[in-house]
């Protein structure tokens, strides 16, 4: 399994946020190691803010959406390498 890439997809359509609020740091950067349950972004749909958590340990290889851009349901948001 190690080295395999998996993607984190959005379960909702809405707005993609990389940080909890505009003046706070981003949740994760490319190259960061993440552990299960860690919040990686927020997807806002109709004023409801949903935290997105990673399911398994890995390294964020690619962030596929720009902060505050729209995201569609099932659209990949992150590429994560299993470690």
């Amino acid at each position, binding site marked *: 399994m190690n080295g395999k890439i998996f993607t984190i997809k959005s379960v*909702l359509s*809405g*707005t993609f946020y990389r940080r909890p*609020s505009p003046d706070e740091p981003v949740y994760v950067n490319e190259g960061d190691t993440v552990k299960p349950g860690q919040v990686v972004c927020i997807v806002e*749909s*109709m*004023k409801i803010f949903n935290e997105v958590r990673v399911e398994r340990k890995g390294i964020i290889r690619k962030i596929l959406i720009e902060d*505050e851009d*729209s995201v569609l349901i099932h659209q990949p948001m992150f590429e994560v390498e299993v470690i």
Partner: protein
Amino acid sequence: MFQKVLIANRGEIALRIIRTCKEMGIRTVIVYSDADKNSLPVKYADETCPLGPPLARKSYLNVEKIIDIAIKTNSQAIHPGYGFLAENASFAEACKNNHLIFIGPSAETHRLTGEKITSRKMAKKAGIPVTPGSDGAISSLEEALCVVRGIGYPVMIKASGGGGGRGMKLANSEEELDRVLRTARGEAAAAFNNSELYIEKYVKEPRHIEFQILGDQFGHYVHLGERECSIQKRFQKLIEESPSPLVDESLRKKMAEAAIRVMDSVGYVNAGTVEFLVDTNKDFYFNEINSRLQVEHPVTEMVTGIDLVRQQIIIAAGGKIEFSQEEVRQNGWAIECRINAEDPDNGFAPFPGIITQIFIPGGFGVRVDTHLYPNYEIPPFYDSLVGKLIVWGKDRAETIERMKRTLSEFYIEGVKTTIPFHQKVMQDEDFIKGDFNTHFLEKFEKGRS
């Protein structure tokens, strides 16, 4: 009168405002984000101007851009609708500085009403009962405990910059109070840019009853009666009606006088609402002033026959309210059901998507304010409210029967909506009896599970 008005909003309320403008012979300019380019307001307005990306901060909250468009299109006034910039003092000020008329109260009034500690003080000074609690901001646990000693638990800790159900927390004990105070200040600072907190006694089983007020620049005030808004989920209203099943003639008179007094004390000009909490003894307490046109304004229009947007425009243009208090009649009963794109069977989760089919009900005493049409895509970027079904009847029983009939005709395919939820409420014994408070939904859902 204005020749041209810019509407700084979207959805059903933008459409609602365009309709009145058309009837008054006023040209309309609609601003819209990329997500709304196929919306009905864009199709119905006389002129359309794009605002850019869907994100509200970059479009419908972009003060500079909206003012710029208003100037370029030679608009004389801006109607903010509700939400977005409707209660934004800086926006009202920016309009004024650019010789544009903001259709709503002044920036100064927005500042007074937006600070809940200030508006509470104003109400108290005007002799209006407020919920027992702190006189000003609370800065320490000791101070909070001192207030609680006088009023007893449970108490609500509220953010001065909050309101509309946001920035409130309940505490039942000293331990909880300590915990809430520790976190609430930071949260309030982040959410409202104002860290001030105050304490109020928690009103048990309150009803949420508000009064519609109009004030013009000549110091005339009239009230258009009350709206009962107790059916809420997480402080968001779902069903509203006018009159209230609880309010009799003598209570109405007392509350209306109090509401006008508080509006007079802040020098309120235009349409606004005074919210009260009413307890089981029918004692009422000032809650807050909503300095805007409200979502639920149509129930008032249905029973009084008065177009509130028309009055807003006339007042903003420097005119007088078109009638006196004696000429206002509350005739019959009206109920509004909010149609939200939400799944009531899944915790009211948002449900954006494409409307594949729609049938909008009609018939005697029925009004539907909606921007939905076949193949319209409800974007995920904004509020879930997609329509309002308002029905009128000669009395409450007839109105409920008409609401049942219209809900059963209202057909929306492609997204889940609150229609099935409303159908169940219309069958509920307590609702039919008019016996409910703001905890109705908790009880209703418990009863059904």
